[in-house]
C-alpha cells in the first residue's frame, strides 16, 4: 500500500505512533509535504468525520483519530512552513458565555483542522466581544460559536448584533451549532450557517470560505 494511504488508514484507527513514524518516513523519502497533509492526514480525518456524521463511529473514535492527526501535524508542520502551505482559512471558535460544554466544540475544532483551517480556539465561557476582537486581530474568515444550553443560545444573537453595531457583519461568515441549535434559530438570529454535526460544519466552512475568497 502506498505510504500516504497508509497514513490515512492508521489515522482513522487512531494509531498515533504509527502515524508519527510514517509521516517521518514519508518526509525522509522526500515526499511532498502538502500531499502528506492533504491526502494522508486530512483525508483520513475527513473519512472519520463522514463516518461520525453517519453514526458509524462515535465521539471517542473521532477523538483518537484527531490525536493521531495532531501528532502527525506536529512532525509535518516545520516542513509545511518551509514550503509555504497556505491554510484554507482562519477560524475563530469557542463556546459562548455562560456555557462550559466543550466536547462538541472540540470535535468541530478537530474537523476544521482536518479540513485545513488554521484554528483559534477561545475555549469555553467566551465573552461575545472576545470572539470579534480575536477575529479582527488574526484576520479570521469565519467565526464559529457553540452552545449546549438553551439558556445560552441568546449569546449567539448578541454576537451577530455586536458585529452589526461595529459594522463588521459582512466581513465574517458566522456559523453556529450545538445540540439545542437548529436551522430556524440560525435564520431567526441572522447567522450565516448552521450544521447539525462537526463533519458537515467543516465541509460547509471550507466550501463557503473558498467561495468567498474566489469572489473577492
Amino acid at each position, binding site marked *: 500500500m502506498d505510504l500516504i494511504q497508509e497514513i490515512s488508514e492508521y489515522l482513522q484507527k487512531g494509531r498515533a505512533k504509527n502515524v508519527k513514524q510514517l509521516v517521518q518516513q514519508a518526509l525522509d523519502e522526500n515526499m511532498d509535504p502538502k500531499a502528506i497533509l492533504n491526502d494522508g492526514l486530512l483525508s483520513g480525518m475527513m473519512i472519520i468525520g463522514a463516518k461520525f456524521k453517519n*453514526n*458509524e*463511529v*462515535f*465521539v*471517542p*473514535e473521532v*477523538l483518537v483519530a484527531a490525536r493521531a492527526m495532531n501528532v502527525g501535524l506536529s512532525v509535518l508542520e516545520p516542513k509545511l512552513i518551509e514550503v509555504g502551505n497556505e491554510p484554507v482559512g482562519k477560524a475563530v471558535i469557542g463556546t459562548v*458565555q*455562560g*456555557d*462550559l*460544554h466543550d*466536547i462538541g466544540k472540540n470535535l468541530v475544532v478537530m474537523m476544521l483542522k482536518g479540513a485545513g483551517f488554521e484554528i483559534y480556539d477561545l475555549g*469555553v*465561557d467566551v465573552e461575545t466581544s472576545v470572539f470579534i476582537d480575536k477575529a479582527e486581530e488574526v484576520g479570521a474568515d469565519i467565526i464559529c460559536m457553540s452552545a449546549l*444550553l*438553551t*439558556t*445560552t443560545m441568546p449569546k449567539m444573537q448578541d454576537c451577530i448584533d455586536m458585529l452589526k453595531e461595529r459594522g463588521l457583519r459582512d466581513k465574517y461568515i458566522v456559523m453556529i451549532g450545538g445540540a*439545542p441549535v*437548529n*436551522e*430556524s434559530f440560525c435564520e431567526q438570529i441572522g447567522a450565516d450557517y448552521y450544521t447539525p454535526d462537526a463533519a458537515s460544519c467543516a465541509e460547509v466552512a471550507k466550501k463557503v470560505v473558498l467561495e468567498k475568497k474566489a469572489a473577492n
Partner: protein
Amino acid sequence: MKRTEFDIKISIEDVCRFLDIHKKSDSYEELLEELKEMLPMAYEKIEPMALLEFGSLDGYTVEEEGRPIKEALFGICTVGKRMAEWSTQLFAEGDYMRGMMADAIADNYLFQMDTAMEQTVIDMCRKQGKGIIRRIEAPQDIPMSIQKRAYDATGAEQEGIGIKPSFMYDPVKTVCQIYLLDDDTSRYHPEHDCSRCSNLTCRNRRIPSVQVKVRTGEEERRIRARKSESLLETFQKKDIFLTAVCAGRGTCGKCRVQFLEGATEPDEADRKVFTEKELEQGWRLACRAYPKQDCTVLLDNAETDFFVLADTKDGNERRISDGTSYGIAVDIGTTTIAMQLVDLSDGRTADVYTAINRQRAYGADVISRIEASNSGKKEELRSSIRQDLLKGIGKLTEDNRLKISKMVIGANTTMVHLLMGYSCETLGVYPFEPVNIDMIHIPYRELLEDERQDCPVTIYPGISTYVGGDIVSGLYTLEFAKREKPAVLIDLGTNGEMAVGCRDGILTASTAAGPAFEGGNITCGTGSIPGAICGAVYRNGKMETETINHAKPSGICGTGIIDVIYELKKAEIIDETGRMEEPYFKDGVLLSEEGNLRFYQKDVREIQLAKAAVRAGLETLAARYGISCEDVDRFYIAGGFGYKMNIHKAVDIGLLPAQCEGRTEAVGNSCLQGSVKYLLDPDAEKETEELRKMARELPLSNDKMFQELYMEYMYFE
C-alpha cells in the same frame, strides 16, 4: 386591583395591517420609516393602567344557557392621557397620517394589554373561587350604561379617568372589559371573542377560537382552542398532557398527534419528523399545529396514567382520626408532585396524593422552565405550582376542612425558585448562581396566597443550583451524615444528581445525563406509562418484550432501554464501540410490530452519552472523595426507575460499576421520605443544616478526570 407595569412590544406588523399598509405598496418603506420613528415617542407617552374589580350585574339581563348570570369582573384598560392628547394634537395640526398612526399604535398597545391581563384576570377569579364563562362587550352584548357600572366598581374616577354622558371614557383610548362569572372553576375564558362581535369590518377581527374534538380511545372531549396558541399549549391549559421534551421547539418529535379532520398545514419541523405518508394520515407535532378551523384529533400518547411514586408503606386506605394533628410532606419534582398527609402523633401516613406537575407545559427539564421564567412567564409558572399544591392539599384535607399544622417541601433548586417567585435569570448560565438556597420558613398563607389553611411551611435547603433540596432531603432520610462507611445516592433523572458521603463529609455532583433514561431523545422513548416496554429478551433473532400493565406497546421506558441495550450487546448486534451491525444499522431493531417500534443506531448513541455521563460522574466523584467504588458500602438509587431496573444489566452495559451488584438498594421517592421524616423529627432542622454544611459540590465541567472517563465509558467494554 391596579396594574401599571406592562412589558409590551408594539407590533409594527399589526399596526401596518391595521392601517392597510402593505409591503407591495410603493410608499411602504417610507411609511415604515415614519412608524419606526414614532415608536420611541409612543413608548414615552404611553402610561398604561389596568383596573380590575368584582361587581354585580343587577339590573341587566345576561344569560348563559338559560341561566341568569349575576356576577362579573369589570376591567378598565387605558394607555393614558398623553397618548390620546398626542394623536388629537397631530390631527389638529393637520398631520392626519401621523395622527392615524398614533391611533393605531395606541390600539395595538391596548389590544396587547388586554391579552397581558388575561393571566391576572384568571388568577383573581381563581382566588375568588370563580370560573369565567366568557367575556362580553358593550354595546352589542349589553347596554353601554354598563361602562358606568364598571367605572364605579373599579374606582376609575380616582385614577383620573373621566366618563361622558354617552358612557364613553375619557381619554378615548380607554376600554372596558366585562367577564361573566359563575362557580364552575373548571374553565376560564377571558379572551375577547371576535366571533361574537358585531363589528364585522373591524380590521383586527380574527376569530380566535376553534373547536377541537379530542379523541382518546373511546372517549371524546370537546375543547376550545385559540388560534394564536399551538395545540400543545391548548392541551396543557386543559390539563391534557403530551410529552414535550423539547418544550415545543419542534425538535424532539414527542408531541405527535393525529388529525382525523381539519389537519393543519405541515410545517418544516413536521416534515422532518414524519414521512410523507404519515403527514397524509394527519400526523403532526402538537407544538407546531395552530388549528385554523374546527378539527378532530386522536391522542394515544397522553400521559393519563403517569406513574408517580408516593411511597406508602401502610397501604392505601385513608385514615383520619379526630383530635390529632396532621402535617403534609411534599415532593415537588420537575415532572411529578407527590404528597403525604401524615398523622403527627404516630407518624403514620393517613393519605397520599400524586399528580403531574403542570409546569410541564413549559418544557420537560429544568432548563426549559428557567427559560420560560426568564421570558416573562415567571408569574404563570408560580401560579401553576401554587394551584397544583392547593389542589393536592384540598384533596388531602377534604377541601380544607381538616386543618394541618405543618408542611415540609423538598424540591430541586429551580422548583423552589419558581414556587418562591425568585428570578431564574442566573440559574441557567455559568456560574449558575441561585438567588437563595437556604432553608426557608414561610407562613402557608404567604407562600400559597390562600387563606384556607394557616401553618408554618419549611422548604428544604439546597447545596447548589443543580444539587437541590430534593437531594438534601434524600441524604437526610438515608442518614448520610451519621454513616460510618461511605454510601452513594444516585438519581437517574435528567440532571443526574449524585452524592457520596458518610459522617466525614459529603460530596455531590450533577452529571447532566439528559432525559434518555426517561425516554427523551429516544425515537420511540416514553415515560413509565401503561404500554411502555419495560423489559426485553432477545430470542431466536427477535426481541420479545414486556410492557407496563401488559398494555398495547406504545414506546419504551428507561428499564426497557437498559434491557434492550444489554440484549443487543449480548447478541453482538452492537459492538463495544456502540456500532450496530447491518442490517440493523440502517433499519434499527424491531421491538414491536404493533406501532412499528424500533430501536435505532441513533438511540444507542444517545444512551452512550447518557450512561457515560452517569458512570464517569460517579467514578470521578468517588475518586475526588478519596475512595474507589470498592469502598462504597451501599448504593441507593432514587426514583421509581430503581425498583424495576435490573442491576446486573445496568452493570453490564457500564451504567453502574460492578461493585453495585449485591450492594444496591432502590429507595423510591427519597425526597418525599425526607420531607415526612422532617415533619416528625424534632431535631430535623438542626440535622439538615449540619448535613448541608458537610456537603460540597464537585464541579465537573473543568475536571480533567471526568472528561477522560466520559470518553472511556462511552464504550461498552
